[in-house]
């Protein structure tokens, strides 16, 4: 049986316990999305063998790595992992090439073979010319790529990415997300992406687990999760409406539709990602006039109650979600099938280069 199958139960002090079950097939990218303190790093530690399970079992490609009941524990150095840590944890006393060659050398490759395979990753990840630099002399984006190369060069049986893009500035973040996506596709191991960034999870993963307070609160493919958030947290961060499109001076043609949105931000041209927060979508019984630059006639597809907000799923030229107050929902008499006007201000349309 290939892939990862894990039931991870770890007690941390009296306050917090992590109890999650995840499955990742070989060649599949699974994202674990959750707020800070949800237990994401604890899961990385448990899978890595740095934190022993209190209960449960981790099986990778048919081999039991940790089983609390059967008292089986494979130490980290025998697990064949590749981990990209949130703050990279590069070895400052080694140059870039030796950092990348660390995995192969540790697994018994001779120095020249290891250096050669490291050199391949250097070239692959656009690090040529930086081989002799020490990590403190690298930019954030370069250090991130070294961390990625070091993990991939170890030819891991399981790739763990712990907030791999969190420390980067916005522009580098977008560029490296694309690069990461390409390299994930080439890696045949099961891949687990830990993140608190919904966009990263939805763009990079085939399957998403939402983790809150040490428990999985929702699981599904990105589209299912976006359209049917099960908790207020998911509704808030993961419910963000996300579109791909092409922008020209603030006019964005949404891919796969004939619909255009107008954004106040005219700085980005070409392929873009567009996000619209559900709270930014206003609903009107008649066509609104005035400041909103984007208005269109939509059809109510569904109405869900999430805590103290009402989420309205809209069909029409584009499918998206709107969050309104229960009072407003009642006043509008929302029900599936109802036609209604949607409006979004140009300033509420966020775009970033794709």
């Amino acid at each position, binding site marked *: 049986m290939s892939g990862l199958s894990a039931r991870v139960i770890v007690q941390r002090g009296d306050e917090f316990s992590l109890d999650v079950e995840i499955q990742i097939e070989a060649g599949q990218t699974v994202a674990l999305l959750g707020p800070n303190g949800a237990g994401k790093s604890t899961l990385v530690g448990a899978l890595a063998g*740095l934190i022993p399970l209190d209960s449960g079992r981790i099986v990778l490609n048919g081999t039991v790595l940790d089983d609390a009941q059967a008292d089986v524990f494979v130490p*980290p*150095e025998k697990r*064949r*992992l*590749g981990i990209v840590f949130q703050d990279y944890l590069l*070895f400052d*006393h080694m140059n870039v090439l030796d950092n990348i060659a660390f995995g192969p050398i540790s*697994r018994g490759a001779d120095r020249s073979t290891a250096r050669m395979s490291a050199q391949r990753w250097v070239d692959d990840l656009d690090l040529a010319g930086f081989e002799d630099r020490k990590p403190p002399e690298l930019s954030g984006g370069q250090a991130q790529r070294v961390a990625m190369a*070091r993990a991939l060069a170890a030819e891991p049986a399981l790739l763990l990415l712990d907030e791999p893009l969190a420390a980067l500035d916005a522009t580098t973040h977008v560029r490296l997300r694309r690069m990461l996506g390409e390299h994930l596709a080439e890696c045949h191991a099961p891949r687990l992406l830990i993140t608190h960034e919904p966009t990263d999870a939805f763009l990079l993963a085939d399957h998403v687990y939402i983790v809150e307070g040490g428990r999985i609160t929702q699981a599904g493919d990105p589209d299912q999760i976006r359209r049917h958030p099960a908790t207020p947290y998911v509704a808030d961060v993961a419910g963000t409406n996300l579109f791909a499109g092409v922008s020209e001076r603030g006019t964005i043609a949404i891919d796969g539709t004939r619909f255009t949105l107008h954004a106040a931000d005219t700085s980005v041209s070409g392929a873009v990602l567009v996000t619209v927060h559900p709270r930014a979508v206003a609903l009107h019984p008649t066509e609104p006039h005035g400041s909103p630059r984007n208005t269109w006639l939509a059809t109510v597809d569904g109405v869900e109650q999430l805590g103290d907000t009402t989420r309205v799923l809209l069909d029409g030229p584009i499918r998206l979600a709107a969050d309104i107050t229960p009072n407003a929902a009642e006043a509008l008499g929302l029900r599936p099938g109802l036609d209604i006007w949607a409006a979004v201000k140009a300033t509420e349309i966020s775009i970033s280069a794709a």
Partner: protein
Amino acid sequence: MTSESGRRSIRRHPPAVFIVLGVLGALIFVVPLLGLLKKTPWSDLPELLTSDIVLDALRLSIISSVAATAIALVLGVPLAWLLARVEFPGRRFVRAVVTLPMVLPPVVGGAALLFALGRRGLVGGPIYDVTGFVLPFSIWGVIIANTFVAMPFLVITVEAAFINLDQRFEGAAATLGASRLTVFRRVTLPMIAPSLAGGLVLTWARALGEFGATATFAGNLQGRTQTLPLAVFVSLESDRGAAIAISLVLVVISLVVLIGLRDRWWLR
């Protein structure tokens, strides 16, 4: 006003009270050195420095202090690692015992060594009965006395470095497939290298200046156990010029090493 880096710097005077007290503090160290230099018989110096008593003591001091530092490195680093990373019963007690020689008068340490390792001692007795080998009053005795007194400096410096080291780096190395010894050799040791070097310098310096434990445990035999500090003590009675010359040798060796290493390793 521009500094070396080319950036503008504002010159502010340090507070007067710091200048006064700081200069007084420095004088505590400078005045004795001046006293030594004032009394130095400069014209006789070449002859004094090449006398047998000085050359013998210099050779013994260098051999014993370097040997003690090497032993401290080989035994002290693993000990420091155990104290820093492994919880075992009696760890607090072992920690206290290891640092005891830093507090204890060296004469007491020397006496304790004699009772333990002397010809009729706890451990020395059986060794003598089986092999006929006597540790005290030999260069081995000097090395042991030096190690006893100086090794704590290495242990506490390196132990602190192990404790302060972010262990996640070692975890990262382990997940890349490195065995525990590989992690130690390729990640842990290089990361604590500055502290290790500082600890080695402190240990060597303490061993070079060691007097009390050596005199008690190894005796004061010229050419066999008489190190530079012992030679100074003996010469003060008989030949003051020689005592001053040997003191100067100690001062020069120490200053060369401290100036060479201090800025490089300790204040990084």
